[in-house]
């Protein structure tokens, strides 16, 4: 393999930027996993991060709400800001950040609690409800927005782990939006789901765009094309190209992007 090509092709974002990453480098121990990433995530848009496995897209996503903090060997350099607030600043509180930036994980991970308690977890933590009534309202509206209310309204007190895979993932999305975050990060949210459940979640993502800024890591280019407005292509820890989704899939600038979207590798 020849030396890494560090060039990034960016078609500038139209509209308001919510998250902006500048010159982000990241190491796991000795190994550098991200090289000089510059990326803008637009407000009330879905931004898809695509690329072959191990390209750093999930790692980058986890930087956005500092989930990498839980890995002791991880070291990060550069600036990431949300609405202009530097999220790696000393003064910024990580709990506050994560309340603003929610996350949905690759495998549905409901807590071993009831459906209600799962959704109420975040609001309870952060004291977002004023009363029992309010909490019930938050739970209900979150489940409704996650499109799960009809399926579970009669068994809110049964364990969340008893739902099907697709329902579990939508429960996790409901759990994330119950906190009313500004941004939702999704790390391959459909990789463990069957096609029907995937379609439901994709539909949901599209609806959520109205109120939230969404960054989604996905393996599937079709999914990226279906749900996102902008796409960023990562390869070997380098952000190769980012721009409007259509452009990436129809007229990629970089050869690597072209090879990937046409299925030469990945």
């Amino acid at each position, binding site marked *: 393999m020849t030396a890494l090509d560090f060039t990034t092709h960016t078609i500038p974002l139209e509209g308001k930027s919510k998250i902006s990453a500048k010159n982000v480098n990241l190491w796991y121990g000795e190994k550098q996993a991200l090289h000089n990433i510059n990326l803008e995530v637009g407000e009330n848009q879905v931004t898809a991060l695509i690329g072959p496995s191990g390209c750093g897209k999930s790692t980058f996503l986890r930087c956005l709400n500092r989930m990498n903090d839980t890995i002791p060997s991880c070291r990060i350099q550069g600036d990431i800001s949300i609405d202009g607030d530097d999220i790696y600043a000393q003064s910024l509180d990580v709990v506050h*950040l994560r*309340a603003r930036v929610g996350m949905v994980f690759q495998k549905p*991970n409901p*807590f071993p609690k009831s459906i209600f308690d799962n959704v109420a*977890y975040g609001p309870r*933590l952060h004291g977002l409800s004023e009363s029992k009534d309010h909490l019930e309202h938050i739970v209900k509206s979150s489940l409704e927005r996650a499109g799960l209310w009809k399926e579970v309204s009669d068994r809110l007190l049964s364990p969340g782990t008893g739902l099907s895979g697709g329902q579990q993932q939508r429960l996790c999305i409901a759990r*994330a939006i119950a906190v009313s975050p500004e941004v939702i990060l999704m790390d391959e949210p459909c990789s463990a789901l069957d096609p029907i459940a995937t379609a439901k979640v994709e539909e949901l993502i599209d609806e959520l765009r109205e109120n939230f800024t969404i960054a989604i890591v996905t393996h599937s280019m079709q999914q990226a094309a279906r749900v996102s407005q902008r796409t960023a292509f990562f390869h070997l820890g380098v952000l190769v190209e980012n721009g409007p989704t259509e452009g990436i899939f129809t007229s990629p600038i970089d050869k690597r992007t072209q090879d990937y979207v046409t299925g030469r590798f990945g």
Partner: protein
Amino acid sequence: MPTYILIATILVLSVIGYYMGRSTAVARNGGKSKGLHSLPGYYGYYMALWCALPALALAFLWLVFQNSIIEGMVLGGVDVQNPSLFMTDVKNYVENGIASGGVTDTLVAAADRYVSLKQYSAIMLSIGAIALAVVGLAYSQTRVGPTLRSRPKVEKALMIALMAASTIAILTTVGIILSLLFESALFFEKVPLTEFLFGIQWSPQTAMRADQVGSSGTFGAVPLFAGTLLITAIAMAVAAPIGLMSAIYMSEYADRRVRSVLKPLLEVLAGIPTVVYGFFAALTVAPFVRTLGQSVGLDVASESALAAGVVMGIMIVPFVSSLSDDVMTAVPQAMRDGSYGLGATKSETIKRVILPAALPGIVGAVMLAISRAIGETMIVVMAAGLSANLTANPFEAVTTVTVQIATLLVGDQEFDSPKTLATFALGLVLFVVTLILNIIALRIVRKYREQYE
């Protein structure tokens, strides 16, 4: 011939058998090893096994049963009131020339008979065992030949041995149950079960005179159960929170460097023999608790339940902490991520997600710890005392089931008094209670593990 020389002889014979087997097999195959069914060594093992196994089995059975047979023969010839006491006297007389009941003619005659029977038995055993070894050699040599499938036969013998070894665990359990049941049954012939289980008076010190057997001590075990419960409760009140919090701190908070120091320290705590804890409890902690109590105007017994319970609790801390550590690390990382991703702090994640998820496993761990506290002996023997008080006051002295088992049996040779038999009844209760706790706990823990595998 002493036993070990006999065994050595048999082993030497079987080594000879090994070489005989090898050479015979090769010789009967026309002097070459090619064409034999198995490698020559297996013919050697074949003969060695035929030589040693029957002879050793005979020796083992003989040694196991010779004592009771000889004693039966000695006692069959005399007419005495207390056969077991008489037998002890005979053995004492033979070994040391003294006897508790005085040296009588009957005793001397019985002793002579005992000695001669023993010698006779030893000679018979030597002749029989060596003869059997030689016969085994001779028989197996006739069978050695190129067509003998010696490897499967040797392997089959080995396999049977392996299987037998794995049944020892069951045999031990059966042995425990049978011996406890058998001796307890004798006890309950003398003391009614209801008195034992529900009586609140425990004073087993049997009257000294022989005509007082009927009016021997009272055996109401409730004070012992209560004392055991009290000390176990104190121990768990110490061990459960400290053990759990240590596990949480070490698995969730401490960085690798701190953990690499703390973990071995806790392991040291687990490796210290219980007798050392007992000594520390009796000599340092109990007086300290007493002084402390007196300084605030409390009347504390010098062997208080509190001192024994606290020390026992500390002893169990590493047990609780390593089990709950295992249980908590089994909670998948995805759960933690989910919680952190919603903006929970570490302690919130632990309290609201990890602990509830790990709860069954922790309950199992605590139950195992309770079973351990109930069965712990040395700390309470040395620090808790003997007085069977029925009290819930941790500053008073109480006694436990294990203390009574240990103290009633120590130094007591007589085996059919209710006092000694009572220990087996107590042992039975102890065994049953801990067994139930263990089975339930192990089942919970296993179910819990399967949930996350």
